[in-house]
């Protein structure tokens, strides 16, 4: 204990220093360590949250881009289909129109042919009638001087019969 006195150890001062340190420890704990550690933790949380959000945002963007691509592809497909459809329809319609036109033309042509034929027949008939009449007239005139009335009649009738028979 002598050595303690040499070094000036005083129980009062010793206790005072211990109490002082406890007080400082308490104050620093409340005023420095806890707030700073809390702040560090808070900042860590904020940064983590921010990073997470950024990651999520990136994912959402990627998804949106993919969706956009999908929609564009779908639209392209659809438009292609529509154009194809339209083309098909148009070609069908044109084919039909062509067909109709050809049919009509054929009909008209046939009609014309028939008419021409008829006309030709009529003409021929008329011509033959004319020829007959003419020949009868010629015959009558020519034989009127040669034969009597009776003979004439018989001859003409015979000629007519012949001509009509020929016909």
């Amino acid at each position: 204990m002598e050595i303690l006195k040499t070094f000036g150890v005083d129980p009062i001062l010793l206790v005072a220093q211990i109490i002082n340190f406890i007080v400082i420890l308490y104050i620093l704990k409340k005023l420095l360590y806890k707030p700073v550690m809390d702040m560090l933790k808070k900042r860590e949380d904020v940064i983590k949250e921010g990073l997470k959000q950024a990651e999520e945002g990136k994912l959402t963007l990627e998804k949106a881009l993919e969706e956009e691509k999908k929609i564009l592809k779908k639209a392209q497909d659809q438009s292609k289909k529509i154009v194809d459809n339209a083309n098909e329809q148009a070609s069908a319609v044109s084919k039909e129109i062509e067909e109709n036109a050809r049919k009509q033309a054929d009909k008209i042509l046939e009609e014309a042919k028939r008419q021409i034929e008829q006309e030709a027949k009529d003409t021929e008939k008329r011509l033959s009638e004319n020829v007959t009449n003419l020949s009868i007239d010629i015959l009558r005139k020519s034989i009127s001087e040669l034969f009597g009335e009776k003979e004439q009649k018989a001859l003409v009738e015979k000629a007519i019969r012949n001509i009509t028979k020929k016909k």
Partner: protein
Amino acid sequence: MVSFAAEPIFRLGFFPVTNTVLDTLIVDGVLVGAAYYIKKNLKLIPGFFQNLSEFAIDTMYNLTESVAPGRAAKIFPYFATFLLFILLANWSGLVPGFGTIGFFEGEGANRTLVPLLRSTTTDLNTTLGLAIFSAVATHILSIRIIGIKQYLGRYFSLNPINQFIGFLEMISEITKVISLSFRLFGNIYAGEIVLGTISTLFAIALPLPFLLLEFIVGFVQALVFAMLTMAFMAILSTPHHEAKEVSHA
């Protein structure tokens, strides 16, 4: 020459206010003031000062965590406070005016300068107080973490060999306090003596390297005291079986 004992400046009733007590109050004021300033200006986006304090506290916390995994939250405040308090106390003695401004006492050959301020770690009262508190806090922490049964198991055993080890443990607990207090006191006190002596030999330029040396010594001693306290706390708060596992690993 500075005496071992701190010189009383005045008395407050039965309480002798020594120059080291005054220094203690100054160190307290700086610590509390800085802590208050930091807390008041704490922001999510830190400024320079906040960055510095955050770096210091984070480093100290990680150091504690590496020495005592899982128990850092309990041990860290002791470690940090010991380190900061002792560091400031050690460095306070290097501030111009400390140990040089004072008044004369005595007559003739006994006439000596009594400095108004003197680094508080050059007073055995302070270092012994810190060491005792360190030991007591260590034991309380140990009981709270591993329980009274395991705690007592370290010192008492029915096995004679283990009882002998327990006896050694008890002695080591006492020597811890002595070594902690006298190491700090001796180093800083000797530093002041060296500085005083060199300054009387040659006042200009020559003391500068010694000042730098004492600056480093002050830091190292604060670190040693705090680290030893932390190590003791980590050892005493480690459960017995876990300690064995660690030694085998």
